[in-house]
């Protein structure tokens, strides 16, 4: 009984620790004034109204969505076939892939950005300042999540057996991959896509250093609001948070109902 109560206490405390900042931000974004008093003075949705009607916010949000979607599309198109080929034909390469996907982690984004600035500021590919450079940079962020999730998914599948069976029933390699392997990767793919999506939506360093105000993303916009009203910023943070929350909930719903 005592151990039980202790465990419950730990869970409650942890939940509080995690939710208090979010609840405080939510409350702040809903309050008219909250300066000299313990509790806010008056509740309002005005900050949200102001935010959602702000054209700069709308632009930043759509920029962020576009870049995220683009990066994820590019990553999916490259990583899914790559992971399949590694697992099916060259399982020995998996070790090298694991080293490869760690490289983006080992290099802090600030350092990587400086390098990218050098490389792409001029020369044959002057990408700095355009959203295109973010697609490439974000690919390196997505790579570890997506490759690991897909490789684990593939390893659990007995792909050699499935491909053999499909071949003997008359399927070519592309058809076997599309009809037999790909549908079974949905779980790993979905999980890594949503994880990467929320990660990319919150990415700041690359976006700020490589593109900045020339194609403003949500995080760059948020940073530029630093000097402005805290209520307004809170409304932005909460909108962003709720968006990711709904998306994550949808993702879990989707992956569950289809299995």
């Amino acid at each position, binding site marked *: 009984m005592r151990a039980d109560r202790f465990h419950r206490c730990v869970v409650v405390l942890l939940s509080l620790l995690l939710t208090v900042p979010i609840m405080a931000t939510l409350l702040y974004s809903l309050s008219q004034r909250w300066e000299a008093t313990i509790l806010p003075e008056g509740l309002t949705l005005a900050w949200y109204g102001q935010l959602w009607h702000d054209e700069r916010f709308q632009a930043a949000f759509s920029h962020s969505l576009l870049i995220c979607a683009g990066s994820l599309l590019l990553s999916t198109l490259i990583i899914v076939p790559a992971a399949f080929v590694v697992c099916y034909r060259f399982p020995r390469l998996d070790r090298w892939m694991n080293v490869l996907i760690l490289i983006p982690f080992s290099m802090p984004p600030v350092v990587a950005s400086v390098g990218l600035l050098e490389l792409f500021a001029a020369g044959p590919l002057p990408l700095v300042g355009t959203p295109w450079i973010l697609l490439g940079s974000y690919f390196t962020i997505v790579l570890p999540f997506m490759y690991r999730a897909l490789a684990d998914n593939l390893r659990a599948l*007995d792909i050699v057996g*499935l491909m*053999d069976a*499909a*071949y003997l029933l008359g399927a070519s390699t592309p*058809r076997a991959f599309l009809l*037999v392997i790909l549908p079974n990767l949905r779980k790993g793919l979905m999980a890594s896509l949503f994880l990467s999506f929320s990660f990319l939506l919150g990415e700041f360093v690359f976006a700020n250093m490589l593109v900045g105000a020339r194609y403003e993303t949500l995080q760059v916009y948020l940073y530029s609001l630093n000097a402005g009203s805290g209520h307004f910023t809170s409304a932005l943070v909460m909108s962003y948070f709720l968006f990711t929350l709904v998306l994550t909930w949808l993702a879990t719903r989707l992956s569950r109902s289809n299995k």
Partner: protein
Amino acid sequence: MFYVEIDGLTKRYGASTVFEDIRLGLKQGEFVTLLGPSGCGKSTLLRCLAGLTTADQGRIRVDGQDITTLAPQQRGIGMVFQNYALFPNMTVVENIAFGLKMQKRSAAETAKRVAEVIRLVELAGKEARYPHELSGGQRQRVALARALVVEPRILLLDEPLSALDARIRRNLREQIRDIQRRLGLTTVFVTHDQEEALTLSDRIFVMNQGRIVQEGTAEAVYTQPASEFVARFMGSYNLLSPTEAGRLLGVELKGHLAIRPESIRLCEPGEQYSADLGAPLRAIIRQHQLLGNIIRYQVETEGVSLQVDHLNRAADDLLPVGSEIAVVIDRRQMREVH
């Protein structure tokens, strides 16, 4: 002229040889087993036949057509795998219909043939299930149906029963044999289980270390092992070294003497026995083991330990350990092996 002919087939991985110079022929409609311990090359041979692995040398012909370099899709060969290899994202019906879909058959024909084959493997009522909702035996039936529905020229079975438990294995084995007979399907079965091989096969090819060491009917392979390896592999043969054979039976041999446990008889003192079997030997029972319808005795005679299988006829048949008895070895059933 054989329906399937394998001629001088060789497969190597680097320096190690998986199998070498394999020659065998199958008649149409025959049920043939490749029997051997794991690592003897039997599964790789089957994969070469299916086209999933390419051989380094040799030719494979089916019905006069050279299929050695043909892609697996074009061979008209069906295969059932040990771990089923069912498509997890498809229902039973979708799994079975996959091959017909690849052949672009009409929906009506597909539905008709899938229904037929589902009836054949007794899976009615499970059409909409996914593989993970089925038992091991049912999964293997789906795999069998999936291979049969495209009407292959040859059916390959790669240890299809080893992942199943004993009772289901026996049932499914009989069912596979029954279906194979009804369809007159040329079938190659791979197993390491000699009992499975003996009960199912028209002919058995025993493989060891990449070579076929004996071929023949189940009866012939079991009663006339061609080598010490086959005798050991086929079951519980008593193998006597030349000196033991000399001491026990007064015969002079170069190789080992193989005696089947069921060809040795126990006689209690005073019991009559037929004279042409040879003189009885005095023996002591060291151990006994009840295997249901058979009692397996370990007896010792002249310092030689022998296994004797005795039909468990009556309840009081079990002789206690330490009993002194006489054994008679049926000399006609003995065999010298090298």
